[in-house]
C-alpha cells in the first residue's frame, strides 16, 4: 500500500537529508522545503498528509507557518509536528497552543521522529476513516430528508384542498405535522343526495409509519361511505380494516360524521377522539362539545361503536381538531384541553379563514413559549345553506 506524503521543512540541509532518508526508507513519499514560504508554495502544488517543520527559519518561521496552515480550512486537518530546539514544557505548550498536533525537541534521534511519524499516520488514518463515515452519514441523511420532504408533499396532497366547499358546507383548515410528515388526516366527501361525509383521524405515533397508516385510514373511509350512510357502520368497518392491517400498538382516534341536509342532522361517532364543537347560528354564541364514548379504531375487531346525533343547520359551524392542539403541557403543568378550546369558540370571527387562524393563534398563545409537540390539525366547517 502506498504510504502517505510527508513535507519536511527545515533551513538546515543536513536535517532535511537525514529525515528524508529515513522517511523514504520507511516507504513514505517526501517533499522538502527550506522555510515556511517555500513550504506553502509546495503545498499549493501537492497537499501533504503530515508536516514536520522546524521552528526557527528565515522568511517564514515555523510558528507563523503553523498558524497559517491551521488557520486555513483547506489545510487545517494536515497533521503538524513542530521541531524546536527550545526544550522544556513551556515550549511544548507554546507549540501546541499554536495548533501544532505534536512537538519534537532538538536534537532528536531519527528513530524518535520515525516513531512519531508512524503514530501520526495511525491518527491520520483514523481521521480519514471518520471523515469517510461522516460523508456516508451526511449523504444518507440528505437522501432521507429529501424523501421525507417528498413524502410530506404527497401527504399534503391527501388532504382536501382548503378553503373549499362540498355541497352545503364550506371548510377551512390548519395542518401542522410535527415532523414534516405526520399521522393526522381529515376528509370531507360528497354523498349521494347532497349529504356530506366528514372524517378526522389521528394515528398513534409520529413520522412515516403514522403517515402511512393515516393514508390507509383515509382510503378505508373513502371505501365505506359508498357502502353505507351510517357513521357507526363506517367506524365498525374502518376498525376492522385497521385491526387487520396494522401492528398491535398502532391505532387511530377518529371523529366520523354524516350530515344529512334534509333532516339538518349530523350523525356522528366519536372513536376515542377529542369532541367536536358545534357553534349554532345566532348570537350570543353558545358553543357545545359533541362528546361521545367510543373506542379508538384498530384495537379489537369486536368492539362496538355508538352513533349519536346533533343538529347542524344553515349558519351553524362545526370545529374538528386533533389532540396536538390542546395537549401541550405548559410550564405551570396546565393543559388547554378541549374545555379551554371550547371557551375560545364563543368569540370567533365570522369569516371562516379568519376564524380558523384566530383559534390556532389562541391555542398557541396559551401554550407559549412551548411549541406544539404533536401533529396539529384544525378544521372548521360552515354550513352555508
Amino acid at each position, binding site marked *: 500500500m502506498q504510504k502517505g506524503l510527508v513535507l519536511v521543512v527545515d533551513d538546515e540541509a543536513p536535517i532535511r537529508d537525514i529525515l528524508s532518508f529515513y522517511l523514504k526508507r520507511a516507504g513514505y513519499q517526501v517533499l522538502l522545503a527550506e522555510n515556511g514560504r517555500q513550504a506553502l508554495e509546495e503545498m499549493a502544488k501537492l497537499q501533504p498528509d503530515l508536516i514536520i517543520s522546524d521552528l526557527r527559519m528565515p522568511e517564514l518561521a515555523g510558528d507563523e507557518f503553523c498558524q497559517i496552515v491551521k488557520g486555513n480550512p483547506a489545510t487545517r486537518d494536515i497533521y503538524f509536528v513542530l521541531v524546536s530546539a527550545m526544550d522544556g514544557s513551556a515550549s511544548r505548550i507554546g507549540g501546541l497552543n499554536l495548533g501544532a498536533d505534536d512537538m519534537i525537541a532538538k536534537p532528536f534521534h531519527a528513530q524518535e521522529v520515525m516513531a512519531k511519524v508512524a503514530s501520526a499516520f495511525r491518527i491520520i488514518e483514523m481521521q480519514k476513516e471518520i471523515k469517510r463515515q461522516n460523508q456516508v452519514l451526511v449523504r444518507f441523511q440528505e437522501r432521507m430528508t429529501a424523501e421525507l420532504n417528498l413524502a410530506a408533499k404527497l401527504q399534503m396532497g391527501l388532504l382536501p384542498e382548503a378553503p373549499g366547499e362540498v355541497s352545503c358546507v364550506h371548510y377551512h383548515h390548519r395542518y401542522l405535522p410535527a415532523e414534516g410528515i405526520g399521522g393526522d388526516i381529515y376528509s370531507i366527501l360528497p354523498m349521494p343526495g347532497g349529504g356530506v361525509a366528514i372524517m378526522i383521524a389521528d394515528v*398513534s*405515533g409520529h413520522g412515516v409509519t403514522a403517515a402511512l397508516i393515516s393514508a390507509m385510514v383515509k382510503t378505508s373511509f373513502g371505501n365505506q361511505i359508498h357502502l353505507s350512510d351510517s357513521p357507526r357502520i363506517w367506524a365498525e368497518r374502518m376498525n376492522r380494516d385497521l385491526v387487520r392491517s396494522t401492528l*398491535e*400498538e398502532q391505532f387511530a382516534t377518529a371523529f366520523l360524521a354524516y350530515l344529512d341536509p334534509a333532516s339538518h342532522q349530523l350523525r356522528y361517532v366519536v372513536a376515542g377522539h377529542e369532541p367536536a364543537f358545534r357553534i349554532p347560528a345566532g348570537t350570543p354564541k353558545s358553543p357545545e362539545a359533541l362528546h361521545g364514548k367510543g*373506542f*379508538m379504531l384498530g384495537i379489537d375487531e369486536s*368492539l362496538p361503536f355508538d352513533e349519536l346525533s346533533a343538529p347542524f343547520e344553515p349558519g351553524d359551524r362545526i370545529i374538528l381538531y386533533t389532540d396536538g392542539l390542546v395537549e401541550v*403541557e405548559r410550564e405551570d403543568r396546565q393543559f388547554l384541553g378541549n374545555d379551554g378550546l371550547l371557551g375560545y369558540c364563543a368569540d370567533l370571527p365570522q369569516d371562516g379563514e379568519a376564524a380558523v387562524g384566530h383559534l390556532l393563534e389562541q391555542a398557541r398563545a396559551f401554550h407559549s413559549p412551548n411549541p406544539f409537540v*404533536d401533529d396539529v390539525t384544525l378544521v372548521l366547517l360552515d354550513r352555508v345553506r
Partner: protein
Amino acid sequence: MLNIQTRQEGNASVVTIQGKVNFEVTAQLRDVIRDTVTTLLPKLLVINLEGVSFIDSSGLGLLVAARNSVDKNSGKLHLCGLPPQVKKTFDQTNLTNYFSIFATEQDALRGA
C-alpha cells in the same frame, strides 16, 4: 424521565410507572412489560399508574398490547391508581371500559 419498577406479589407481577408516558419512553416501558410477561408468565399483571402525570396515544397503545400479550397466556391485566389527567384520557378513548381498572394497588391485587 420515566421511572419503572417491578416486583412480585405471590402469583402477581406489579409494574409501577412514574413520570410522563409518551412516544420517547414507550420503547423502555415496552421492554420491561415484555420481559415481565414472557419470563414470569404472571397470572395477574398489575400496572400501577399512580405516578403518571400524562399518557399519550403511544402509551395507550402499549397498554393495549400489554393486555393482548397477558391474554395470550390466559392471565389478567389490572390497572390501578389512575390520576385525573390519565383517567380523562382513558374516558375519552373509552378504554375505561376495555381495561379492568381499580382505585388502589391492593384492590387490583385482590381483584384477581
